[in-house]
């Protein structure tokens, strides 16, 4: 009896009072994105042929580059924070500060990268 315990993603995202729940979701998206990309990329390169080339050409596309670089960079920076805090639990008291620094670093590097990718794409 009673309602199900399921929590939909929308409900989860609407939950307030989150710690850096957003970073948790983005970290996951980043990791997943990379893993899927790498698998397909490896397979495509291995099989080669026109199909393989077609797939690998998508990766040269600037829009895809912006996406995958987001995955890589966010996952890497956030992963570094998690690793450091996990290995030194004492530092967890400063997790809010860590997250602020993390976002600052991410936005700076990612902004620079997006700017560059678009400039290259526009042939500049």
């Amino acid at each position, binding site marked *: 009896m009673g309602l199900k315990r399921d929590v939909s993603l929308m409900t989860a995202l609407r*939950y307030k009072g989150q710690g850096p729940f957003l970073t948790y979701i983005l970290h996951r998206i980043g990791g997943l994105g990379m893993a899927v990309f790498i698998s397909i990329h490896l397979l495509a390169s291995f099989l080669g042929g026109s199909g393989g080339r077609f797939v690998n050409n998508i990766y040269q596309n600037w829009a895809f580059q912006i996406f995958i670089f987001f995955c890589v960079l966010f996952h890497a920076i956030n992963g570094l924070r998690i690793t450091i805090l996990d290995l030194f639990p004492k530092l967890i008291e400063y997790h809010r500060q860590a997250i602020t620094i993390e976002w600052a670093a991410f936005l700076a590097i990612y902004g620079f990268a997006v700017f560059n990718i678009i400039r290259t794409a526009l042939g500049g």
Partner: protein
Amino acid sequence: MEITIKIFRYDPEKDTRGHYETYVVEGDTNDRVLDVLELVKGKTDGSLAFRRSCAHGICGSDAMRINGRNHLACKTLVRDVGTNITVEPVLGLKVQKDLIVDMGPFFDNYKMMLPYLINENPPPADGKERLQSPEQRARFDETTKCILCAACTTSCPSYWANGDYYGPAAIVTAHRFIFDSRDEGASQRLHILSETDGTARCHTAYNCTEACPRDIKITKAIGEVKMAMVTGKLD
């Protein structure tokens, strides 16, 4: 002052799904949200169901979502959340009626942690207390504060996704014993927590720490447990 309170309602004997009701009551900014709920129940709709007892944040009965996040209704004042209040049951446990959820799985996880002092050696021969220095006592002070309200576990995205995860509250309990210098069951508990549904399910989302009404630094405690698993250091 007028307080508008929107409450999640679900009557298992009539409804198949929940809905919201809005009530307007006369209250004061210094009222607890619990007082407002009592007022609604007392004056407007007696069938409203929620748990409460101590009314001052010590018994852990009344964890619920207030304006979208977990709080104890008795430790949240109207002045902190405003006069437009939304109250919903916590997430991740079955709703049994209105704001009451099934706490069974939560307590089952607690029991899994062997939540009692394990020390097979007889107490000192003089019959007196087992000695413990103030520093050793301080080591686990934080996690002795837990009132088992479930605010943490029901705010954890990992628990939402997977109800088999033991959850932060259970790990807090394990921490209380693992780091107690008198206890000798650390190894058993660490082994239980090293299973797939143990600490591996914690992805340091921090929702738990934010939600804890007793201000326990839960994520830190979990981190310490994980490190104890790797390094074996219990001090």
